[in-house]
């Protein structure tokens, strides 16, 4: 599944086994997206949450 980066326009390749919630990042500009929806081979992305101060293990 392919789509394009909203930030820089580069092609984004989504792995075939991707699931909703998974993070994909643009190889060109490093923007991160979260897979929001997958339906009949189409994938809908939304901007991933930015790393928060309270993130971690």
């Amino acid at each position, binding site marked *: 599944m392919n789509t394009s980066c909203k930030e820089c326009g580069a092609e984004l390749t989504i792995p075939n086994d991707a*699931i*909703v*919630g*998974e*993070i994909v990042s643009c190889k060109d500009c490093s923007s991160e997206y*979260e897979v929001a929806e997958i339906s009949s081979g189409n994938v809908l992305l939304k901007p*991933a*949450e930015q790393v*928060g*101060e*309270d*993130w*971690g*293990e």
Partner: protein
Amino acid sequence: MKLTITFDRLRWEEKALSDAAESAGLDSTLLDVKGLVFEVPKKPQEFGDVVLQRCISHYRSSLLTQALEGAGLKVINSSAVAETCSNKLASSIALARAGVPTPRTLLALTSEAAEEAAERLGYPLVLKPFTGSWGRMVTVVRDRATLQSLIEFKEELANPAEQHMYYLQEFVKRPPRDIRAIVAGDSIVACVHRIAPAGEWRTNVARGAVSKAFKPDRELKEIILKAAEAVGGGILGVDAMEPESGYLVHEVNNTVEFKGAQSAVDTDIPAQLVRYVAQSARR
């Protein structure tokens, strides 16, 4: 038993845990919690009866666990364990009170007291935020002038609870590596050395550290399990150092990441963790 694995950012670990649950024949769901709404204290219909809490945001995880426990669900790890592990001060207290060797730690409630605490500890020392992970903002302070500059910067930051109070710890002379043990209940599932990359003193995998399998001796095994018990037990990542004076536990992680450790050991870590969850649910 119906298992729900919660996440807010889907990492390799959560997918591996979900796959392991499926392989073990468990009825499990991987659930993104970001869109959920809770009517307290009801149990949201999306959830089973046992929850493996894997949210990456501490505050989100903490509130979610409270809401789920309030609805009568069993959550691994419990909110009490999460609170102890996510606050470095609470962790230090729990470890010290249980007799687990841990670095000398001082709390200072003002910038003036921080300078006094530093004089007592001596330089170099380590300044850490109370919450946070991956070595972020953990700083070696080598002299008083540097500490004063850091204090000035911190005092300008917005969050008074986090930024205007100080957690200071002795700087432990150790090899350029530490020990990460992944614990489930009363057993050590995997143990690795985390070797810091060139030019970096911190040993977090998130900072490029490499994991290498490591067999703990009997003394270290006892210390690791005692540390896990000290914070309340569950699925935990116990971090230890090995200075010449003997082992020291410096941190216990509540939502342990194990991708690095898995790259170094043959044990199927997610399978073992899921087995622990299933056993705990039956109790």
